[in-house]
């Protein structure tokens, strides 16, 4: 794939050092990340870097088959091997050992999800035995000495095959592989709309299974102190408190005697949200051997166990009148859930998917049905985007097909059906209330950046020369910061989706803040410090943000679903404001003024109209802790905690445009241009926003062109290493031109929306639309992802079938 040598982005955002930023500008400045020096010098500590005295190493034996009965297992030889401390099988487990699912649906058939297999193997990642040994290599040696007898069963890997009548049943007690049957929208109205419309365009698409591929594999170090029954777990987690809660139940350990910490975490993309058997087993094993135990997944093990994403087979129908007005949308999806329910898996193909099907459009009638299916693949759960990319993909592909059907330009049909800025808040037929947006603006900016009219001329000319250029639009919408807790509870969530933030002044006037968010590369220390410096008027360098420690932080829900800024950031804002309010009272007391007359700006309290009567928040902090002279009814100290529960989701949006050239002889796709115009609301740190967009796009490019977890008919993962599963490399990803517009969200005090997943949601359909557009003269109307060279070549007429 050719990468041109154009500068990346016409307006590259320059970073600045915090010292060079005026306090008033701290929010919105592209400050260099404070996280970076330790990451850049090897000083950072990831889980596998942790060394504890007497530490042992653990390895897990997984299944040779995706579906089998475990007839017999003999660990005697392994137990005798050099360095082996202990070998355990399900027989040794003395705890409940069943992984819970954190989201219920009315029709959900919940199934037992044991941390070690007693009898029935349902996917290759199932754990059959574990070995604890003195050294890593010894633990892995011993796995080969475990003798396992299997009775292989027929396997099924696709949801539609699993739902067929003659499919092997994975959870026999259920008698069916149907995990749930869910719908949203109005079936009758939608059917009527489809019947009444001038045209109905249909499309069947597969949204393939993807492997998240955080470059750091999952890892755990567990240390148990029997003298006070304390279990200290350090692990690769996006949400330590959630892991502590769930694991406490799985291994029957009191939650208050358990500490879960996230050291530096090397990426997550969803895969480190879920509670896996692995961390429960490491923790349990540490209690058994009463020595620290470390485990890090091998990459193949990650591929066999990290919850995968997507896995949809979807039939879509869009009703469009001849003038381009979209009348209705019908979507029927079969969703692959894998062998068991992962932590949040029931919510992904339902509430995070069906509710986004209105896209950026005014569509009066939408109906969506989703059938979840158990299969013999690894459990499927949230992966960057989680439900929203699937929704965006089917809409944006269908809109393109609708444009073809009525012979309209793909940009024009979008504009015709966009919601207008004054339509907000807008309630969709699929239960969402969009907060704010200006969809025309991002599309127009993108068209301008890409030179749309000029491109169409160039395309025409190229076609005459036998070259195939194409352009693809993706006008996406995202929903971040899933909320409020009461609503998600009604929808089936087993958790609240608030976030906690604690802001604590020290007596000397510096700030230590605790957030229940748990970053793993997003730069929370930097952005949260910016937020607090702005709110408190304290020097950026005098603020320390603490995340990822259940002992230090009140409670937390963690980082996923692009929620950290909108929810975690807002919690800190609210706490900062509480602190300021308390400080204002102390300041007023000290300045002998009415609190209402005391103004706060840039860290200074000042009596209105009396500039000489002022004090700093640092001085107030000292007073608060001295408590010699504070208001009578006030407790000493200066800190506040907030459990911020948002009133609604926030809805980032934007337009991405891909321009490609396709070689029909080889199926090769070369990027000519990639333009992204995103609106993620207010931006705390534009450089970090840009980085999130870039990374998201790269993963979208991966899905569109390269990636896919492939299983054979027996459920064997055949893309079992990085030699076989194509994580995009440096030259696979195009130079990206990123721009943004800013439409603040009215839903939170920062006016932010969320940016973590936008690129991944936006990119795939921009690229597929572009390739299909390029090959339109050859009669191509759809190609399944990933658009491998062979698929593109076949679609363009190559090959026999």
């Amino acid at each position, binding site marked *: 794939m050719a*990468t*041109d*040598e154009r500068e*990346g982005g016409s307006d*590259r955002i320059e*970073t600045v050092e915090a010292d060079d930023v005026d306090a008033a500008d701290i929010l919105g400045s592209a400050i*260099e*990340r404070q*996280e*970076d*020096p*330790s*990451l*850049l*010098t*090897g*000083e950072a*500590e*990831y889980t*596998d*870097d942790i*060394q504890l005295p007497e530490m042992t190493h653990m390895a897990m034996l997984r299944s040779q088959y995706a579906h089998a009965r475990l007839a017999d297992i003999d660990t005697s030889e392994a137990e005798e091997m050099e360095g082996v401390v202990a070998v355990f099988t399900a027989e040794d487990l003395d705890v409940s050992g069943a992984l819970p699912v954190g989201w219920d649906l009315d029709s959900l058939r919940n199934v037992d999800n044991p941390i070690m297999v007693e009898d029935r193997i349902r996917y290759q990642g199932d754990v059959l035995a574990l070995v604890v040994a003195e050294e*890593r*290599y010894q633990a892995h040696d011993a796995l080969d000495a475990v003798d396992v007898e299997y009775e292989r069963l027929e396997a099924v890997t696709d949801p539609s095959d699993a739902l067929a009548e003659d499919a092997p049943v994975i959870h026999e007690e259920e008698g069916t592989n149907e995990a749930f049957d869910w719908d949203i929208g109005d079936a009758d109205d939608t059917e009527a709309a489809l019947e009444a419309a001038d045209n109905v365009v249909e499309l069947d698409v597969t949204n393939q299974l993807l492997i998240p*591929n*955080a*470059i*750091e*594999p999952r890892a755990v170090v567990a240390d148990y102190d029997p003298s006070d029954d304390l279990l200290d777990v350090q692990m690769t987690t996006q949400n330590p408190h959630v892991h502590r809660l769930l694991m406490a139940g799985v291994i029957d350990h009191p939650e208050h005697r358990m500490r879960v910490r996230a050291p*530096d*975490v*090397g*990426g997550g*993309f969803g895969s480190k949200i879920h509670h896996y058997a692995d961390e429960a087993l490491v923790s349990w094993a540490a209690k058994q051997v009463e020595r620290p135990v470390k485990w*890090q997944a*091998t*990459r193949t093990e990650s591929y066999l166990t990290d919850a995968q994403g997507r896995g949809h087979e979807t039939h879509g129908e869009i009703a469009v009148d001849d003038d381009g007005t979209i009348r209705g949308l019908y979507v029927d999806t079969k969703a692959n859930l894998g062998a068991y329910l992962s932590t949040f898996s029931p919510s992904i193909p339902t509430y995070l998917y069906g509710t986004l099907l209105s896209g950026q459009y005014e569509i009066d009638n939408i109906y969506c049905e989703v059938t979840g299916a158990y299969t013999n693949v690894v459990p499927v759960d949230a992966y960057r985007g989680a439900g929203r990319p699937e929704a965006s993909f089917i809409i944006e592909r269908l809109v393109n097909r609708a444009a073809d059907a009525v012979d309209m330009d793909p940009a024009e049909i979008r504009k015709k059906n966009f919601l207008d800025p004054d339509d907000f808040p807008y309630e969709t037929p699929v239960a969402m209330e969009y907060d704010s947006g200006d969809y025309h603006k991002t599309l127009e900016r993108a068209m301008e950046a890409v030179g749309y009219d000029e491109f169409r001329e160039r395309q025409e000319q190229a076609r005459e020369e036998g070259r195939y250029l194409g352009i693809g639009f993706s006008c996406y919408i995202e929903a971040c910061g899933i909320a409020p807790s009461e609503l998600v509870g009604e929808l089936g969530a087993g958790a609240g989706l608030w976030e906690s933030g604690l802001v604590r002044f020290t007596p000397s006037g510096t700030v230590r803040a605790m957030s229940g968010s748990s970053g*793993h*590369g997003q*730069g929370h220390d930097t952005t949260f410090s910016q937020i607090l410096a702005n709110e408190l008027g304290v020097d950026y360098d005098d603020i320390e943000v603490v995340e990822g420690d259940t002992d230090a932080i009140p409670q937390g829900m963690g980082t996923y679903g692009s929620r950290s800024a909108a929810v975690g950031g807002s919690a800190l804002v609210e706490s900062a404001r509480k602190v300021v309010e308390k400080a204002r009272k102390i300041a007023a007391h000290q300045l002998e003024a009415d609190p209402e007359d005391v103004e706060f700006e840039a860290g200074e309290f000042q009596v209105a109209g009396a500039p000489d009567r002022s004090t700093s928040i640092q001085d107030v902090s000292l007073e608060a802790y001295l408590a010699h002279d504070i208001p009578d009814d006030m407790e000493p100290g200066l800190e506040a905690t907030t459990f911020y529960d948002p009133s609604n989701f926030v809805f980032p949006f934007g337009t991405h445009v891909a321009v490609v050239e396709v070689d029909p002889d080889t199926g090769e796709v070369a990027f000519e241009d990639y333009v992204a115009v995103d609106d993620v609301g207010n931006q705390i740190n534009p*450089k*970090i926003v*840009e*980085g999130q967009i*870039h*990374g998201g*796009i*790269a*993963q979208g490019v991966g899905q569109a062109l390269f990636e896919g977890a492939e299983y054979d008919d027996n459920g064997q993962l055949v893309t079992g*290493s*990085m*030699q076989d599963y194509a*994580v995009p*490399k*440096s*030259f696979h*990803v195009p*130079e*990206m031109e990123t721009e943004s517009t800013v439409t603040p969200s009215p839903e939170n005090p920062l006016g932010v929306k969320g940016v973590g997943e936008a*690129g991944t949601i936006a990119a795939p359909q921009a690229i597929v639309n572009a390739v299909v557009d390029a090959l339109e003269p050859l009669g191509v109307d759809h190609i399944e992802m990933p658009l491998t060279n062979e698929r593109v070549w076949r679609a363009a007429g190559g090959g026999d079938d």
Partner: protein
Amino acid sequence: MERTIELTVNGTDHQVTVEPRTLLIHALRDEMGYTGPNVGCESSVCGACTVHVDGEAVKACTELAVRAEGSEVTTIEALGDEDDMHPLQESFQEEHGLQCGYCTPGMVMTAAVFLEEEPDPDRAEIREALEGNLCRCTGYQNIVNAVESAAAEMAGAVEPATDGGTAVEEGGD
């Protein structure tokens, strides 16, 4: 089976006892405490384990420690420290060329020798040079920017490399 080997890491002589099968990356991380280079894939693809062996970028997961006997190994720890970073480390920070940081030590070490060999690369050459280092966070663009701007910075620097030695190898830990 085990044997004791001698090698120099970041300027320090080490004597370490390993099995013949012990991979260099595990000897560095587990036996000698150099946890800067990371293990990401084991299949010689991701490059998170990249270190310099006798001045060349090498995937330490695809080398046996016993074969590194007598070698000079340099890890990210020697490239620069937090108060005195290498131009590449500085440019990675300035250009936001890292997010989670797990691939970064390997990425920077590959880039460091690349810039010695090719002080004035274009963007396509940088992308080719980093083929053996996967990053899942950044989408590479800011990494390319970082290498590009470090190249400019290093070209303008007053200290030329002397007698074939490199700034990289002169670090110490």
